[in-house]
């Protein structure tokens, strides 16, 4: 019988406790964890674009995150289900988004996947998780810079399979 693998997903205003989350998704059969965490970037040096609008290098004072919490948690569970459908080697999955007012260098998001070994797709699974979170999990951030404040909008338009 296949053991029940832990799946953790949450939206929180609290600090993200990486050690505790990894411990919660580590089984006796686990030998590898791929952990992605994103943090608030205080200095943006590369040029980029959001919604077709170019942005120049700039400084960020802080970000304010908000979420449609019940839907965000349902969509996080969907991301976890999609990971398991693609990589049957994945043991535990943790997906956490922190919301509220967050300053540069502060971790804002974590996605961690565990597996028996590192060559099981565990890196790709974590990468898929953060990419999907940024497409379908309803969370938004408002950026506060020395020159003002602005909502950051994504680009991805969901379809019926999302």
């Amino acid at each position, binding site marked *: 019988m296949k053991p029940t693998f832990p799946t953790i997903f949450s939206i929180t205003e609290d600090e993200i406790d990486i050690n505790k989350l990894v411990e919660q998704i580590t089984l006796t059969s686990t030998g590898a964890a791929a952990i992605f965490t994103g943090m608030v970037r205080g200095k943006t040096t590369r040029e980029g674009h*959001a919604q077709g609008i170019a942005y120049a290098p700039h400084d960020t004072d802080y970000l304010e995150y908000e979420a*449609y919490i019940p839907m965000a948690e349902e969509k996080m569970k969907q991301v976890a289900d999609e990971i398991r459908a693609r990589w049957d080697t994945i043991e535990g999955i943790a997906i956490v988004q922190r919301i509220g007012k967050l300053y540069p260098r502060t971790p804002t998001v974590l996605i961690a996947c565990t597996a028996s070994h590192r060559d099981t797709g565990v890196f790709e699974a974590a990468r898929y998780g953060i990419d999907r979170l*940024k497409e379908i999990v309803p969370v938004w951030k408002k950026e506060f810079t020395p020159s003002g404040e602005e909502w950051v909008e994504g680009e991805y*338009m969901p379809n019926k399979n999302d």
Partner: protein
Amino acid sequence: MHTIKILFFATFRTRAGMSSMELEIKNGSTVGELKEILVAKIPALEASLHHTLLSINRDFAFDEDVIPEGAEVALFPPVSGG
């Protein structure tokens, strides 16, 4: 007729000037029809409606979808979490 709850997030909350409202709609109304009703009520929403994400009962919905009785509908821009 039936009453639905509408939630606004991010730019939509700012434009609508509120985070939620209740609205009475005709049975069988679609998402596309709801958008027209909302623009008539809240003209500030019009600019962003072509780039709107909309959910019904916490799942993404599209213009042709019929809004079920008592639905929780949410309007928001493409997501920017992470």
